[in-house]
């Protein structure tokens, strides 16, 4: 196995969530992205600035995964969802709610949690 190196801008982004100051990258034309990005793939602007991420978002689609990868073996079953925060959408794991009760439109907030299986950091959503 190859030891994992830190993932620079991505790890810094997770840090920002833990510090209660999460951000996203916005180009001059208002397109939002998550780091690392050097260019807006939509309009090719290279003028990207860090902007505060909205406090909550809505689940746009979700699934309860029962056959996981080995890195999530002890987490399963778990809910993976894509959540619309307005300028950006983020994929993460929904916790703090019965999987059966997760629905499109459920309002959630963003935090950093741990994978049960490996202890690695993971993007976690909890109902607001």
């Amino acid at each position, binding site marked *: 196995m190859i030891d994992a190196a830190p*993932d620079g801008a*991505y790890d810094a982004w997770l840090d920002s969530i833990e510090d209660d100051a999460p951000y996203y990258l916005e180009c001059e034309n208002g397109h939002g*992205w*998550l780091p690392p990005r050097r260019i807006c*793939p939509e309009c090719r602007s290279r003028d990207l600035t860090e902007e505060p991420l909205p406090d909550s978002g809505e689940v*746009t*689609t*979700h*699934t*309860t*995964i*029962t*056959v*996981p*990868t*080995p*890195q*999530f*073996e002890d*987490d399963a079953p*778990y809910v*993976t*969802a*894509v959540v619309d925060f307005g300028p*950006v*959408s*983020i*994929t*993460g*794991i929904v916790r703090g709610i019965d999987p059966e009760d997760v629905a*499109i439109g459920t309002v959630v907030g963003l935090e950093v949690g741990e*994978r049960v299986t490996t202890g*690695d950091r*993971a*993007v976690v959503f909890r109902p607001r």
Partner: protein
Amino acid sequence: MSNPRVAGAGVTKFGKHPERTGRDLFAEAGLEALDQSGVDPDDVDALFYGNFMGELAEHQGHQGPLMAEAIGLDVPATRFEAACASAGATVRAAVKDLRNGEADVIVVGGAERMTNIGTAAATDALAIAADDLYEVRAGMTFPGAYALMARSYFEAYGGSREDLAHIAVKNHEHALVNDHAQIQKEITVEDALEAPTIASPLGLYDSCPITDGAAAAVLTSEAYAEDHGLDAPVAVSGTGQGGDNLALQDRDHFAQTPAADKAAREAYADAGVSAADVDVAEVHDCFTIAEVLAIESLGLYERGEGITAATDGETSRHGDLPVNLSGGLKAKGHPVGATGVAQLATIAWVLDGSHPRADAVEDGRVGVCHNAGGTVASTTVHVLEVAE
């Protein structure tokens, strides 16, 4: 524009062959394709080879020259990697080189060895076709990704798990006479609906199996086929490829596949045909919902209407537009790096009348292959036509 010919094709039995190496699988398919083509191996100019997870499954990179050696060729050999669309990408590259005079004969194909590492490791390996930082680390698996797309589709257009089950039932029935297929077993809608869930709303029978296998084809320029009197009645008349954001979260919607829309538009324009001309299609049904997204992107159905095509019998071998006569990835199996050329082989055999399900398309002249990588972040579409 001259249209390259399919001079020969070879496909291994798809299935569980954990003891067979990738090089052995590809050698079987490649040699079959060469033998069937009637082409002198000394005339082959290049090998374009598709493979996705060789480093993980076999600890083997640099597979191009290895595979050329395996089929007795001393030619430039390059591996193409576009996740599950790797082999489709080999066809596209070959068509371009054959048209522009760079080559007269190119062997295309691919192989994948997957079952030797077990379901968990194969699930892990497949997952890395998604965005590692933002999807894999959020627990995304490939069934999970398509489950997210299926739920979005149901929300946007309607449809049900039962409609998806009809796709699985159809493709299993199609595979019954395909001896290359991994699964030759009829199932019912009830079987599909009662199967264990993998990633809600998708169950075991919404998902293609994990598969070992290889496929190869010998493509020649039109002039080479004519000069050498080859029995090669089917031409590749159109090629297209489209791309999209890698991560689902960065797309405008999850219930459409714009990369496939682009590939289809390009391929149809290249061939000078329209969706209405298509007699038969092999599409990338790695999950049942993927077949729906594919037939809509190909323009064979309006957006939101593909979901009931199998339920209504329209895409079965008895219907007006048979889709996945091979059994599709769902029943035939999905050795990732080989799939695009296995699709090409199926359509060529259907159009030349040698496929066991060819009678479903009497006098068929136009077929289409749709090969999608990842959550359709890359897609190739090829149009095949009877040329003689």
